[in-house]
């Protein structure tokens, strides 16, 4: 449980927008990710709230292709 719970807690953010989107994602599409993709998702969670929200909202794109792939999925969530 520990790792998944740690992840779930790190989806608790200062922005309600991210709480909603990240929880939707964790409860759905996350399951189908490969372990590499899961690591990429964890890395994205270390971003500042507004920077992460800019990615999710489509105001910015991620630095790398693997990150962008996860971002695209977050945008659908």
């Amino acid at each position, binding site marked *: 449980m520990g790792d998944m719970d*740690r992840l779930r807690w790190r989806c608790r953010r200062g922005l*309600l927008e991210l709480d909603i989107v990240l929880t939707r994602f964790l409860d759905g599409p996350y399951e189908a990710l490969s372990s590499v993709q899961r690591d990429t998702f964890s890395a994205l969670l270390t971003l500042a709230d507004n920077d992460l929200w800019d990615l999710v909202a489509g*105001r910015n794109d991620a630095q790398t292709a693997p990150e962008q792939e996860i971002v695209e999925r977050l945008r659908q969530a």
Partner: protein
Amino acid sequence: MALPTRKFDAVVVGAGGAGMRAALQLAEAGLKVGVLSKVFPTRSHTVAAQGGIGASLGNMGEDSWLWHMYDTIKGSDYLGDQDAIEFMCRMAPEVVYELEHFGMPFDRNENGTVYQRPFGGHSRDFGAGPVQRSVCAADRTGHAMLHTLYQRNVRANTVFFVEWMALDLIRDASGQVLGVTAMEMETGEVWIFHARATLFATGGAGRIFSASTNAFINTGDGLGMAARAGIPLEDMEFWQFHPTGVAGAGVLITEGVRGEGGYLLNKNGERFMERYAPTMKDLASRDVVSRAMATEIKEGRGCGKEADHILLKLDHLGVDVVEKRLPGIREIAKKFANVDPVKDPIPVVPTCHYQMGGIPTNYHGEVVVPTPGNVSTVVQGFYAAGECACASVHGANRLGTNSLTDLLVFGKASGNRVIEYLKENPGHKDLPADAGEVSRARLARLDGQTKGESVFEVGAEMRRTMQAHCGVFRFPDMLTEGVARIEEVTERVKRTEIQDKSKTFNTARIEALELDNLIEVARSTMICAEARKESRGAHDRADYPKRDDESWLKHSLWYAADNHLEYKPVVLKPLTAQSFEPKVRSY
């Protein structure tokens, strides 16, 4: 076995704007400061603040702290304490310029001065017309403020305990506060933080309602801890509902939208705020706008199939203004309301946004409680600042941008007071023999519970009850029933059960502990609201539509142990200014 203990001069619980401003003051004075936070500091809810910080810099035209004070008192519907309000409005420019010097990237005018935007409820010359008083960093004011304060704290050697959850206050037999117990999420271990001074800056508790702009972490932990330790909670009936949360999601559409020229429409396409507030129109204070919206909906002029929301129109501003001045709004509307606001209006409803009440303090941030012969006796060693505190500068309603002002002013002031107190009171007082016992018992109860209640279900029931019985418009029968219902929910909270008993990052346990705090906030809100037989600021009763200064110009104090209420007078005497006598409010 005694719990492991860490010692600090001062422990600050909460690393949002208020906690970090206070910690900075303490650390820069050379004190040993520990700051606890459930999440990484810059992920505190302050990050959500977009609109700005209110301060009468006068960069966009004449302004004065006295006008700011007048607006704040009027906005508070005369329930704010005028000594604290004067203190805040006078200090505001100073703390803003300090923040600028700390490196805060404020928006600027062409002449290099800090730009100030207009905001609801702020006026020049005692209500003569709108004034531009809000300083901002694009739509990232809170974010920039947290990052600026965090960097500065790191430089000053503040010690952060990140992903630690404070559980209970430690008081000795004399009532003095000696620190907190806290759980490290990573290990599930409980520690005692033994402090000479303890400062709460745990933020608001907006998650007691189903429609809320607040992030999930806003569970009122400081209020729950204080209430369980015998400290009353003040003015808990007053909750600001933001007029424009996205219908169904809660996500906020900033008031800046109306500041920049957006306006509200009913189903007939009427700009109805012209009827309710002829001068300020869509820029009237939040309670005026929320009530107007609720009235439109109640009288059948709401929009949509269910006639249950209002439309916020901004397409006339043009793509350029929307993108430049209101950059986040377009994406939010698309994602949570499924509309593009440069083409179509956004469906919105009044949504719980801000808690005016909290832990009672004076304007030095000292926690104060009534004792025989003194309505405001200082609790030794205990301080509170920010949204969890009630100073009370917001009274029955807060003006937009005054919360960030509150964080900076009272964060700093409480820090200064702690410094003075520690000079006069050297050394740690001994912990009581049973320190930490309360927390251990709570955790043992939770772990040992069988045939118990689901945290999720009981929490949902609490939120539904608060929303239906104690929302933006309050009806007597609903309140009476609400009191009974919330007591039932309280009984269920005592029997919550978690399936997962693991130690590492057990979010189920954390959420159960949060619910223990939320329920104290919900109870206090319902009881205070039922008892207050008038309408004032954000407390709006159908059966008592008017403010009643004769009976109700007073603060409520709610005690958790037996649900009883006491009242204390509003401070009508400012520090130096003339008192603003209660007047009928119109905008």
